[in-house]
């Protein structure tokens, strides 16, 4: 009886793991197909799964031929990196300073400011698409890097996250630094930020990915190909040169890689970020 049970257990466990592995592979399949296809000769994209030989033709096309057609993908890649890095840097910086002011300087209105960030986060972003476009237009920022960087350089979510994290840092550290004559900026950068590394990483990673992956906003505010981030440039290219499947898939690989890399490197913070958002 016990032997029979034992066998049953082994069999059901192996079925479970085989099933889970199968499903995982199905989930990974789109990525694998994308990656393989970007290196395939063009006539093999829809006919074979594993390429008979590897070629860089698609990548060469997206970076050099498409450039001659007026789609500068190398510049698009630079634009995406530049805008995402700048916004991430500014958001972490400003959110840390405002979060410090709210939690550690007991000024009048600190609490109402904190509550206000919560109300701001409740409203869906799409409500403000058209009015924000009008504001950015009247500031003369349309069709420039600033159209993406400026409206995103500060945000309620970052302030909220840093305020939450700074609350738990004891005041003694700050008092000690003040004794040594440190000003607020010094305290934020040398005391507060190092003590809340994971919050800084979470805010940084999610901001970076948010800007990298942003599509509707840059689509609205940027018309010239030379200022477009990779996401929009790829979508516009796909609309007019959709028949060139290979190059489009190569472009998608380039658009995907930074996000996947950040996820793999910082997965600890991803999981923390998700579990923080649950509270």
């Amino acid at each position, binding site marked *: 009886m016990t032997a029979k049970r034992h066998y049953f257990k082994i069999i059901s466990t192996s079925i*479970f*793991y085989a099933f*889970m592995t199968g499903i*995982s*592979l199905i*989930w*990974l399949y*789109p*990525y694998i*197909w994308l990656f393989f296809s970007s290196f395939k000769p063009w006539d093999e*994209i*829809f006919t074979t799964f594993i390429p008979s030989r590897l070629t860089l033709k698609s990548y060469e096309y997206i970076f050099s031929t498409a450039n001659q057609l007026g789609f500068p993908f190398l510049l698009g890649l630079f634009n995406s990196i530049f805008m995402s890095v700048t916004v991430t840097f500014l958001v972490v910086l*400003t959110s840390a*300073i405002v979060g410090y*002011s709210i939690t550690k*300087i007991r*000024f009048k*209105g600190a609490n109402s*400011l904190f509550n*206000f960030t919560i109300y701001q986060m409740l*409203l*869906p972003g*799409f*409500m*403000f*698409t*058209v*009015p*924000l*476009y*009008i*504001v950015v*237009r009247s500031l003369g920022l349309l069709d420039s890097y600033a159209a993406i960087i400026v409206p995103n350089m*500060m945000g*309620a979510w970052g302030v909220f996250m840093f305020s939450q994290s700074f609350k738990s840092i004891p005041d003694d550290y700050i008092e000690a630094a003040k004794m040594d004559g440190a000003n*607020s900026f010094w305290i934020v950068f040398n005391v507060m930020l190092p003590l809340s590394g994971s919050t800084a990483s979470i805010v940084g990673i999610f901001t970076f990915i948010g800007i990298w*992956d942003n*599509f*509707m906003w840059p689509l*609205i505010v940027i018309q010239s190909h030379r200022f477009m981030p990779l*996401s*929009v440039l*790829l*979508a516009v290219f*796909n609309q007019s040169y959709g028949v060139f*499947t290979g190059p489009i*898939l190569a*472009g*998608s*690989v380039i*658009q*995907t890689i930074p*996000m*996947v890399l950040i*996820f793999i490197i910082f*997965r600890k913070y*991803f999981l923390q970020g*998700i*579990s923080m958002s*649950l509270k």
Partner: protein
Amino acid sequence: MEKRIGTIKRKENIKGFWLTSPYLLFTVIFFGYPFVWLVILAFSKWNFISSPQNIGIGNFTKLFSDPMFWTVFENTIRFMLEFIPMVLVSSIALAIAFSKARYMRSFFAMSFLIANVSSGVAYSILFEQIFASNGPVNNFLYDSFGIFIPWFSDPNWAMFSIAIMVTWKFMGYYALIFLSGLQSIPNELYEAAKLDGANRWTLFWKITLPLLNPSFVMVVVLAITLAFGIFTEPFIITGGGPLNSTQTFMMIIYTDAFEKYQAGYSATIAIVAAGLSFLMIFIVRKLMEKNVSFS
């Protein structure tokens, strides 16, 4: 002494104000001012160029008699009816599988979560190709079962295909939410129920599911929010077609404002869409939310 405390307080007030002033200014320009514009736009007709024309509640009356609005409303409801049950069942099942797996846990978690960090544009292009009429999925289905599915070209299939894509992307993330719900259920409850002779099925329906209620409500709320925000997938793959079957609120907000230049009408749609999503979330919370305590 009291005077000194007073000056310290005043100093702190000034310092706090100085340090937050850039943020306050930013919020006035990029949140307060647009908010005022939103209200103005809702009651005006405007093509972005001439001066806005006050038309009272004209935008709202136009909206409710606009067939496109109702098509979009229907599409969104349809998407939710397909997506929410599909993602709930699969992510609860996945969460339970996660909790049972002792080996290869990080491989499983990575495979499902990596879908969640796919870029919106890239994964739309990717699924457009995978689900193409000559794409690998149809090739496989045709070769093994002789079936052909018009994923994005048939009005009855297109929205469902988008629901499948979104499920692919979000199942791992939602499973993680359910997993943290599962882990907060005390093991003693199961032990006690087993002593009373409950089988696995009863355990699931009488203990697991009721105690997962907070995670359940949370995932449904996230899914509703998501349904109202769909833009990239239909914009890239179908352009809202075939026969407007994949038009979403975000799609008509975009086309009305930036292709038809009806700024006021577009802003009105945005307000109504936000109102609808709040209403649905409110109803869901009222109907589903139960106070769960483990004592």
